[in-house]
């Protein structure tokens, strides 16, 4: 057997040491009436070439290798090659959770760097070591806000990813948590007037997403201010983490009232492939004062007994293996390897590169939207500023993007389209052409922002600052 090293001779010697005459004897505690007395009915074992054939054939059945212009929470960004080269090291991917800190400093430091990057990008004090994904992260954020506020009513914007809202519902329904939705205004953002009327002193937290599911940028700071003025917490969800590289972070403002209390989200955009929905990597960042209510693992910087700086999992008294049913969460694992991918991504692109990638997303999406507006009869239905997604009201057919009929039936024949930096000019033009064919063209032609479509590239920086990432021994 290819993954079992012990030979027949080894096995015989081991049985002799044990004092058993057969391996069968070792299972004597399993009663006869529950034994399986046949072989499992599974496909016959495949050789390595056969396995490759099988999986290559399945992979070939999955299309969408062209640009489908779908985002909706999973984004196709360029993934620097060095990520896979580094995470393919056995030292990272075959290691266990770093409970034994002395022989897991690599994993621990990488997570500490992830926590730092997330805190910096969101403008928050601290971030955890990652969560399963954005959707479960949002559910955890809601439970966390419930623990902090001791209140049970949550206002959640309908512009939050509908599947994230569904996950929140699943988690919340047996805990007495009540969710009320906040409607969106005609510009595709939270309807502030209605929110103002909806929010009373009984609200635990207001939850919004930015950029929201329609791709528009919410007034997160105004919403935080409003929430705080009514004694509620402010939770901001982020599905498209790349946008944090250019948008004003929800946790940052001159006035404390305008800062979010929890910023939670999905970091798949930082170098993690779509992979048919997972694994991705959730994050959760908050204020210092709420650290002990956070779910999930945390890595801290401490010292060993001879005074050397060392990283270690910390504040574990919040966790299930210590607190059991009184823990802040049932979470045991995080998404270490995906968090490592995000960390390598951010280190590779650097601040300028990240901003440049953001600009490409904004400009290309804007170019695509304008081209569609000018060359087709499809209509952009939301006017608010957007990042890299927009909603089209379609006349006739649309073979790109995501139909919103399941999530927002009131929008009719509407599609959510996403244009990232990976879309090439000719692909965008071809998409617009296809959309134009399925609708009668309008005879205006306004050239916009073509000059901005310079070739996308990641910035490999030349000015290298020696900073925290590179101090060999701290």
């Amino acid at each position, binding site marked *: 057997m290819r993954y079992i090293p012990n030979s027949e001779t080894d096995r015989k010697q081991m049985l002799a040491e044990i004092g058993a005459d057969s391996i069968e004897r070792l299972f004597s*505690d399993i009663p006869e009436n529950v034994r399986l007395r046949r072989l499992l009915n599974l496909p016959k074992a495949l050789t390595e070439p056969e396995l490759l054939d099988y999986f290559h054939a399945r992979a070939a059945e999955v299309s969408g290798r062209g640009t489908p212009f779908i985002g909706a929470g999973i984004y196709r960004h360029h993934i620097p090659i*060095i990520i896979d080269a580094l995470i393919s090291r056995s030292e990272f991917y075959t290691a266990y959770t770093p409970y034994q800190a002395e022989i897991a400093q690599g994993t621990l430091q990488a997570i500490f760097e992830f926590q730092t990057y997330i805190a910096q990008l969101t403008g928050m004090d601290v971030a955890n070591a990652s969560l399963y994904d954005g959707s479960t992260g949002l559910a955890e954020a809601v439970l966390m806000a419930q623990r902090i506020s001791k209140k049970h009513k949550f206002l959640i914007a309908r512009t939050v990813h509908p599947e994230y809202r569904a996950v929140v519902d699943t988690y919340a329904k047996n805990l007495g948590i009540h969710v009320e939705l906040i409607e969106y205004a005609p510009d595709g953002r939270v309807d502030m007037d209605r929110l103002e009327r909806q929010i009373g002193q009984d609200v635990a937290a207001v939850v919004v997403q930015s950029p929201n599911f329609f791709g528009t940028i919410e007034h997160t700071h105004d919403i935080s201010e409003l929430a705080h003025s009514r004694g509620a917490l402010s939770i901001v969800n982020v599905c498209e983490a790349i946008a944090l590289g250019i948008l004003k972070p929800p946790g940052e403002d001159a006035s404390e009232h305008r800062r979010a209390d929890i910023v939670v989200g999905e970091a798949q955009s930082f170098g993690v492939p*779509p992979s048919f929905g997972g694994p991705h990597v959730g994050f959760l960042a908050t204020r210092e004062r709420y650290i002990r209510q956070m779910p999930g693992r945390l890595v801290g910087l401490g010292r060993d007994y*001879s005074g050397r700086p060392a990283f270690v999992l910390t504040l574990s008294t919040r966790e*299930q293996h210590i607190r059991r049913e009184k823990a802040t969460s049932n979470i045991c694992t995080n998404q270490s390897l995906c968090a490592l991918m995000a960390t390598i991504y951010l280190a590779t692109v650097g601040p300028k590169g990240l901003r440049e990638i953001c600009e490409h997303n904004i400009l290309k999406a804007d170019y695509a939207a304008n081209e569609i507006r000018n060359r087709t009869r499809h209509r952009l239905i939301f006017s608010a500023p957007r990042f890299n997604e927009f909603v089209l009201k379609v006349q006739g057919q649309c073979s790109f993007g995501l139909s919103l009929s399941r999530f927002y039936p009131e929008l009719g024949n509407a599609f959510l389209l996403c244009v990232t930096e990976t879309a090439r000019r000719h692909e965008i033009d071809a998409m617009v052409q296809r959309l134009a064919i399925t609708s009668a063209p309008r005879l205006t032609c306004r050239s916009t922002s073509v000059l901005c479509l310079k070739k996308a590239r990641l910035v490999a920086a030349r000015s290298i600052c020696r900073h925290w990432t590179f101090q060999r021994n701290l």
Partner: protein
Amino acid sequence: MSEILDANLLREDLPGMSELSEVDVVRHFTRLSTWNYHIDLGLYPLGSCTMKYNPKINERIARLQGFTLAHPYLPAADIQGALEIQKALETCLAEISGMDAVTLQPAAGAHGELTGILMIRAYHESRGHPRKKILIPDSAHGTNPASAAISGYVIETVPSNIRGTVDLGRLAASVNEDVAAIMITNPNTLGIFESDIAKISELLHSRGALVYMDGANLNAMMGITRPGDFGVDVLHINLHKTFTTPHGGGGPGAGPVAVKKMLEPFLPYPVVAKTAEGAYFFEYERPQSIGKIKAYNGHFGMHLRALCYILANGAEGLKEASEIAVLNANYIRAKLKDTYALAYESPSLHEVVFSDRLQARKDVHVWDIGKRLIDYGFHPPTVSFPLIVPGAIMIEPTETESKQELDGFIEAMLAIAREADETPETVKTAPHTTRVGRIDEAAAARRPVLRWKPE
């Protein structure tokens, strides 16, 4: 830019993030990697964690571009290959566990527990009342009570008997119409098969309650016995344990949940279904579903690896894996039982639990023994768990270790026992050979430093 987005929407800078070359980044993370222990370096005898070898082909096939670029919202016709893989894995897991239906949506074992308990709740609600309590043996993982609690249940602990298994008499006294289910691990965290399991299931079922099994220890029983055949109604499976998906330094995992027929309507949506013409699709219309437990449909990258492992082994290979996992654990037990105190005399399956009772006489404790093992080149076993064994040393070698590797580990354990007797300070101050020594965890938790800050 300023024509498109108003300047007040934009951030100014990213303080503390620096510009680096590719060489810098590669050297930095390569250097970090050398500070880790990992399964490709040697034995990882963590009890209950099933740290087995991660086949290289798994990594190769999970990186095929058709899979990595696939978006779950593409039209069904464009994702047939991915859906077929999810269906194939569901079918294999159902057969291995003796269950009827499987969801691949949960992201990890504890997430699977939550999913399973929510389904149990939905099942009872559909029959009129969710009930109040979940019974959990005192040897259970901490995730069990935590998962039951966030599902809105009260936890009642069931004590173990002197064999280390569930005390049937005490259990009988606890089972009534308030009980929604028992959450049982089998083989349990002591590595002991709950030989009364069929009776336990009958007892619960007779009062309308269900049996949830934590499948953390499935590696002991593939092809030998099936949870579905001894009365289990819901089971989660850790793909990152039994089915060789890598641990990645603490995730991503994957925690599929397998159920009996009567629980199938409550599975999270969507489920992978098939049209009359044989085409796969995501079925969203599931009126009795517990809802969504995660966006999309689970950790597909992990599903690929697990299916690859199952197909590489076939029925005979999986059975042999379980047999040799049990052989290896018993070999360690036989070689160490005269030196370390066995926690329970009952036969061990895939793992064996000792206590530090004999070594504690010289004030050498389980943590010390674990840390000293690092100096001998091995990862420590699981220590201080299960909680019912004071000073527990829980060893699970798995089937992917050679006799030679096990002999090295056994020699190291015996040497440490001698040191504990003769030069206890050596053990108590271990490890001595690592980059950093033992860490003052209390101090780290008192004043937590959780990020780097610009000076």
